[in-house]
């Protein structure tokens, strides 16, 4: 276990159905592989039906709370851009936002534009905008693996203090056989970004 890392706090934000819990499971397993303590928190049921959702993952030497505190996220993983903006509750000046360049429209109301969102996020932390959904759609004809692409990328670019090898091991552990090949291809695709 790397001794210098005391703790790392991740909040994943997105909409119900984007596979947040799978991503949470993969990161948690990868952290356990590397010998960290890990705790996570997620929501099920009504809150999962297409509304705003957030998942919390914390790992490090000693972890108590399963929830990330206000302003204490090291990384906010935004699977949808408007939801990423909601994630600022957990951000401080050092927080990195790793964003999927995708806006899922909320029906019958005025939605925010990409420009508005980016302008505001940049006021706070460092923003890394990745066309994950678009890239996956082009390559695999589906964007369901956009989140896998993002967490893989995060490990290759050191945005998450977990080795790429731990992430791919965790993908093999968590993803069902039927979808494993697609997910591993996505992992490899993120390496060449």
């Amino acid at each position, binding site marked *: 276990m790397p001794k210098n890392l005391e703790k790392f706090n991740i909040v994943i934000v997105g*909409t*119900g*159905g984007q596979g947040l819990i799978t991503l*949470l*499971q993969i990161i*948690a*397993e990868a952290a*356990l592989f590397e010998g960290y*303590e*890990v*705790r*996570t*928190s*997620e*929501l*099920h*049921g*009504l*809150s*999962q*039906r*297409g*509304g*705003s959702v957030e998942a919390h993952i914390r790992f490090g030497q*000693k972890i*108590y*709370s*399963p*929830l*990330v*505190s*206000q*302003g*204490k996220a090291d990384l906010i993983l935004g699977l949808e851009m*408007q*939801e990423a*903006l*909601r994630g*600022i*509750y957990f*951000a*401080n*000046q050092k927080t990195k936002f790793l964003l999927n360049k995708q806006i899922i429209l*909320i*029906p*019958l*109301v*005025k*939605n*925010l534009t990409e420009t*508005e969102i980016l302008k*505001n996020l940049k006021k*706070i932390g460092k923003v890394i905008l990745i066309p994950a959904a678009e890239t996956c759609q082009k390559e695999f004809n589906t964007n369901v693996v956009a989140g896998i692409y993002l967490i893989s990328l995060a490990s290759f670019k050191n945005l998450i203090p977990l080795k790429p090898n731990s992430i791919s091991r965790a993908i093999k552990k968590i993803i069902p056989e039927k979808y494993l090949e697609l997910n591993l291809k996505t992992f490899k695709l993120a390496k060449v970004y």
Partner: protein
Amino acid sequence: MLQKPGKKIILLGNEAIVRGALESGVQFVSTYPGTPASEIGNTFFRIDKRAKIYFEFSTNEKVALEAAIGASFSGLKTLVAMKNFGTNVALDALIPFVYTGTKGPTVIISADDPSCHSSAQSEENTRGISYLVHIPILEPSDPQECKDFTKLAFKISEKFKIPVIIRTTTRVAHQRAPVKLSKVTKPGNVIGEFIKDPERFVTMPPRVLEMKKELLKKIEEIKKFSEKSPINQISRGRASVSSKLGVITSGVSYLYVREALKELNLNLPVLKLGFFYPLPEKKIQNFIKKFKKVLIVEELEPYLEKEIERLAKTANPKLQIFGKNLLPEVGELKPEIVTSTIAKFANYKLKIENLLKIENWKLKIPKRFPQLCPGCPYWLVFGAVKKAVDPKKVIFGGDIGCYMLAGLSPHFLQDYLSCMGSSIGIAHGIKKATNPASAIASAGKQKLITFIGDSTFFHAGIPALINTVFNKSNPLIIVMENQTTAMTGHQPHPGAPLVPNGIKIEEIVKACGVKNLKIIDPINQEEFINAVKEFLEKSEVSVIIATHPCIFVAPKNA
């Protein structure tokens, strides 16, 4: 779930409960799904054959508990799981069960949902029923404790012949963390035997009053057990501060307290209560007797705080007790709330310059509410109803399931929502109250449509439907037959056609004496719209069974 002992694997709190039950040698499990308890049943459903135990999704939580009582009376080690509201449904069976006591050890899981993430109807604090029922309640704070406390609960039940509740909350049930596995105990012979013992199993006066005396005596004995139990644990702080300040907490709040103390670099003594009922009163009194101030960190209603106020009267009358004067009584606690509260309590200056003041932002992020899945058949039902009637002129009754989203945009078809099955019961009352008896032959001025799912109909809708027939009212009831318990994760229910020889809802409806009945796939919009119009004019109760499978239900013969 059936992995080898010695390993540390990441488990969800609910999965850890299952593992704890397996390590205890559980033999009989029943449940009705409800968030945040659903994964307990789902996991047993997946492994019951391999684990060689009996498992069932029961029709509702009362029936699930009654099944468990029968299994316990027959000597089996039994677990029953439900969400908080389910415990309310089961309460009528629970109270006498505590009087008779258990034969096979029995553990009941009751899951609360502070902040109502996945719960309509109320923000319940199920700990309160301990006073009503006299039932031991344990509160784990993480997955490891979910497993350990489940095993302890079986031991307590075995030793004192009483059912024991494990009360979780969303942040415990849906928390993942590594759990150290121990050995799974083989369930052995899962065929029990009911040995007649009316003295024990029949609650009737005058015997029932003797039973109550025996129960209260049992609780006194369990209190002694609680006094010595390591799950009520004290961590001593540094001597310099520990003489003045202390913290008492339980459940997930304990984790926030530890996080806060680490964050603030404070070392206060903490009493973590694993038992909510019966409380280790002497241990608490010993803990508080030297302090000037004590902070009680608990979610929702201040049950612990009230108990500690009482205990302080003799142990330390000058003690200043802090709790709900600093912490919210509505909504779940969060680590940042607990940190700032402990800082205040300990007169510690908290640096907050790094926190962003979001409320000062001009930008409005539009709210994203949950909605029906694309392709959900309920879109068709709500669409047809809107075409058939002027929604402003009709009362819409809601019930518990995905279709409660009728209350949100773009549907807005929900004028009341309460508990499971109540759409029909309340509809009857509204119809009787708004239409005088003299007008019984007419459809009445205020028309009313209720939406109720198939699983909810089986759960609690049938007695209410019978009441509309027996006491003559005329709501239009639309049974949303999507063939599954969708909201909680697509668990099976007793209905056809997915269950071989499943029960047909139309046959129940007919048997209840309903004459106006149509079964329509809402894909046939014209037919559906006409049926709604026709039935709203009837002077007797009408039922439309809107039959179309949930998009997550695999078509059988496709």
